[in-house]
């Protein structure tokens, strides 16, 4: 009725002036909203980040989802069901946030199913036994929360608000995982071996979740300048190591990193070298479960075709 909801900010004539005004808004801590002027690169970077994040939530249901039918008791089954359902919901928040920037659901999903879109490489590793669900909640969700808490302060309003909702729900995921790890660590010798094995397998993929080292991360500089990120990949990774390592030691568990050491002078844990060849191999599609994950998503998409068709028929009937 009234056209678009574009909210122009002042009288802007040239691109340079527009950019300066935009950066001044970021410096004042203002949130950028869908109709506001923004540099094309800001839009492009956000669509890339938010859609990858959405895909990660959706694919992230699969490793744990495989254990819903094999939960050891009803309570654990309910917890896992709720957690996996939350991940689906988080994917929805994020797809909606990406849509506010002009990306369509169709093109995002198509890119994922065609294997063109990236998602967190950690979800391309298999869950071999029940203890893996504890390690995932504790390490993978623990790493994700550090990143998401930062993104809750991001300069793009819809992304930031999606993150606030996600963080509130995600804290239960982390706590239930941590509880499992603690209980396993204080259990029978077999249970202790199980959780140590799970930690050993999930440690490095979790460390890689923060992305390449700062020197190698091509997008970091602009994302920090525009208030999308406020911490670098290495800063977040270091926070993670300093949080988790002392706790694992407290539980009598070890970290599978022979290079791990405590720097007395800087009062910080320093990790050994990360196998970036493995990281890039998995990102490029050659991880242990990449094919299986995409196959599962393609099947789910195909199985849901009738819902989309029914909605389309409803929409057409409505229009006539």
């Amino acid at each position, binding site marked *: 009725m009234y056209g678009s909801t574009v909210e122009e900010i002042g009288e802007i004539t040239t691109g340079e002036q527009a950019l300066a005004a935009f950066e001044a808004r970021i410096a004042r801590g203002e949130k950028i909203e869908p109709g506001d002027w923004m540099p094309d690169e800001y839009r492009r970077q956000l669509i890339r980040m938010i859609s990858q994040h959405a895909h990660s939530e959706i694919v992230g249901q699969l490793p744990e989802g495989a254990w819903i039918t094999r939960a050891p008791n009803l309570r654990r089954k309910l917890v896992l069901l709720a957690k996996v359902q*939350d991940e689906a919901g988080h994917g929805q928040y994020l797809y909606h946030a990406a849509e506010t920037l002009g990306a369509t*659901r*169709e093109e995002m999903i198509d890119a994922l199913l065609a294997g063109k879109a990236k998602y967190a490489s950690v979800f391309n590793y298999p869950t071999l036994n029940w203890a893996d669900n504890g390690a995932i909640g504790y390490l993978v969700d623990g790493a994700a929360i550090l990143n998401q808490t930062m993104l809750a302060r991001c300069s793009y*309003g819809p992304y930031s608000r999606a993150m606030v909702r996600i963080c509130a729900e995600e804290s*239960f995921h982390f706590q239930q995982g941590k*509880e499992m790890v*603690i209980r396993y660590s204080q259990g029978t010798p077999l249970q202790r071996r199980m959780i140590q094995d799970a930690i050993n397998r999930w440690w490095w993929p979790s460390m890689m979740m923060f992305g390449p080292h700062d020197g190698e991360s091509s997008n970091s500089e602009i994302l920090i300048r525009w208030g999308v990120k406020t911490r670098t990949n290495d800063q977040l990774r270091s926070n993670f190591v300093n949080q988790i390592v002392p706790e694992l030691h407290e539980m009598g568990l070890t970290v599978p990193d022979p290079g791990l050491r405590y720097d007395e002078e800087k009062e910080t844990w320093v990790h050994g070298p990360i196998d970036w060849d493995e990281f890039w191999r998995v990102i490029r599609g050659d991880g242990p479960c990449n094919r299986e994950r995409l196959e599962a998503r393609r099947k789910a998409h195909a199985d849901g075709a009738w819902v989309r068709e029914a909605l389309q028929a409803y929409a057409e009937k409505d229009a006539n």
Partner: protein
Amino acid sequence: MGDTQWSRYYVFEQPEVGAAFILAGSVHAPDGEMALLAARDTFARRPRRTAMWVVRDASIFSRTREQLDATRPDKDAGASAGTVFQVFAKRSHKGVHVHMGAVEAAGPEAAIRCADPEHGGGTAPVWWAIADGDIIRSEEGDREVLFGSSPGKSFRHEIEYPVRTMMMDLKRKKKD
């Protein structure tokens, strides 16, 4: 990027009975009824809402503070009989749109100009006016079905997992 999607609907949610509606986000849907369902499934999976409104984006009339200050008020500004508008204000550039109240006016801009002083918008940088009839509302009788609490699902709260106490117990055991 071409938009191959259905219309965009803005979603407003009410956190508790009597509280102001606030902007939650947006969904795409073939019509208002489906938009309301999508909004519920997306933004109210955890029961902490009492009602929701959805509005098609084309039905939202938007004015910035600069636009309001730059133009002279319409001749019909002031509360004259006409249409009922629900007026929202984004009270700072860091916040979201919050419902300020209903105003009867000849047009949306007049509604905003009426609401501004009356509802203490002050320096609010962005105002929205929506004709009351363009709002699709969740029904009072559906509150329990759509947003009812789930007391049996306490396991979704972090407080259910006493990890802090458990870690302290570990430390104590180590010392002994």
